[in-house]
């Protein structure tokens, strides 16, 4: 028995041992690398984006040695639980559903969800009474806007990235009336929006604004209200295993410090083109 244990231990050591010490000196942070401007790759293949800069700042504040790894969005929470890494910083919204499985630091960015269509689309002129909907408690006015939204897109195809708060919204609010198509990456969804395979795409404003300002998004247009709360969750935070609550508290403190000394706001403005930072 002992011999087997030794072999198992030796075998284990030969694999990349990314052991997490309990006092948190070295941690591994996962990001997706396909969700500009939060995290993406430049043409030299380097990971860049708001969260990469923020992670660097926060790690320096916490005096942690951080390694950033890439992880496909699909398995990002299971792999956190499997301890492939310790923290997720990948534009992930804080939702009740996710809180059942993992915990979060406080939010570092707040980003309304919004629809985008192509400029030549019949929905390019779609508007609602309110410019912003907060869906924690739906008022009569907000209900009317949601109904208008449902009536407008009835029977149409709406694309969304899989396992996102935006998918939650579509399934909860519009699921019975529209055809929801889910994508592994936001970039593939963009390709299909431009190709006209989906009538509209739902994603975070933080993603849309810089994209629409660039050449790549010049044929797209934001329509309808910006939506927060309810199925959209409570802002974007760092996802952390429940057993590492101490680490989550450290992140919260570091984010608070970054807000207090005025680091976060210019960082957000630099990457998003508007102030998407948490207050």
């Amino acid at each position, binding site marked *: 028995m002992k011999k*087997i*244990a030794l072999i*198992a*231990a030796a075998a*284990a*050591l030969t*694999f*990349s*041992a*990314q*052991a*997490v010490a309990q006092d948190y000196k070295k941690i591994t942070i996962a990001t997706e690398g*396909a969700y500009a401007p939060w995290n*993406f*790759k430049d*043409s*030299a*293949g380097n990971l860049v984006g708001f969260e990469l800069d923020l992670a660097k700042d926060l790690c320096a504040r916490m005096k942690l040695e951080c390694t950033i790894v*890439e*992880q*496909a969005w*699909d*398995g990002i929470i*299971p*792999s956190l639980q*499997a*301890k*492939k890494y310790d923290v997720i910083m990948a534009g992930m919204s804080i939702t009740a559903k996710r809180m059942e499985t993992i915990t979060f630091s406080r939010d570092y960015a707040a980003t309304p969800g919004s629809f985008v269509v192509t400029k030549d689309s019949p929905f390019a002129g779609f508007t609602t009474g309110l410019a912003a909907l907060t869906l924690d408690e739906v008022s009569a006015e907000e209900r009317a806007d949601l109904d208008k939204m449902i009536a407008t897109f009835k029977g149409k195809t709406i694309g969304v990235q899989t396992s996102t708060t935006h998918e939650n919204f579509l399934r909860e609010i519009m699921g019975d009336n529209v055809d929801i198509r889910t994508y*592994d*990456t936001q*970039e*593939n969804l*963009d*390709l299909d929006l*431009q190709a006209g395979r989906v009538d509209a795409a739902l994603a975070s404003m933080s993603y849309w604004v810089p994209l629409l300002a660039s050449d*790549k998004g010049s044929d797209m247009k934001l329509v309808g209200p910006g939506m927060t709360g309810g199925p959209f969750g409570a802002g974007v935070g760092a996802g952390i295993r429940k057993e590492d609550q101490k680490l989550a508290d450290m992140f919260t403190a570091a984010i608070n410090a970054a807000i207090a000394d005025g680091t976060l706001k210019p960082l957000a403005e630099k990457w998003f083109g508007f102030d998407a930072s948490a207050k």
Partner: protein
Amino acid sequence: MDFSLLVYGDSGWGDEMLVGGLMTIAIATCSFLLGIVFAVIAAAAKLSQNIAFRGLATVYTTVIRGIPELLIIYLVFFGAGQLMRNVAVLFGYTEYFDLPVFVTGMICIGASSGAYSTEVIRGAVLAIPKGQLEAGKAIGMNKWLMFWRILVPQAARFALPGLGNIWQVTLKETALISVIGLADLMRKASEASGSTKEPFTFYFTALVIFYVITKVSGRGFVFAEARANRGVRRA
């Protein structure tokens, strides 16, 4: 189509695609070799007298042949690390460890490749005339000597054409590992497509590179076969 996107260097994706291609060759080679190891073990089990060994080997080849490789990749990607850690904990080892994506991919594609190679190797061993082994025994060779001197060289020759086919299948299957994030040719093509909005340009480039790798390595196997068969009398 804008071919200037394919230039080598920081402004284009040519260098990324090339690195991706090398990664594809690396993962395919490692998976294929691991597959042969699996296949030799499984073929030996299938040829053994022990019914439990035969049964296990049959379960292995049947399950792998009946389930999509994509599903196996997801399953191993999400499950293997967890399973190994659970086992390690039983032996009192609590430190965290995990398999890198490369190893995960290698195990999945290797297992798949091995299941197909098993039959090739089993067939090759059975194709060796019994008389040769009897002759070996008669001149006093022990089992190991017979294995290395008689079985391996001849079985390798009989197995080469079949293994050449399996190499091609393995090479193509590696594209699937891109779904769990290995930075191979396919993944690089996806990244470049998303970034440049020119999916056709990059997937077409990936197609061409895969074609070239398949063809060149195919010639390699033809050459190896010719070499292995030198001195064999032709009817």
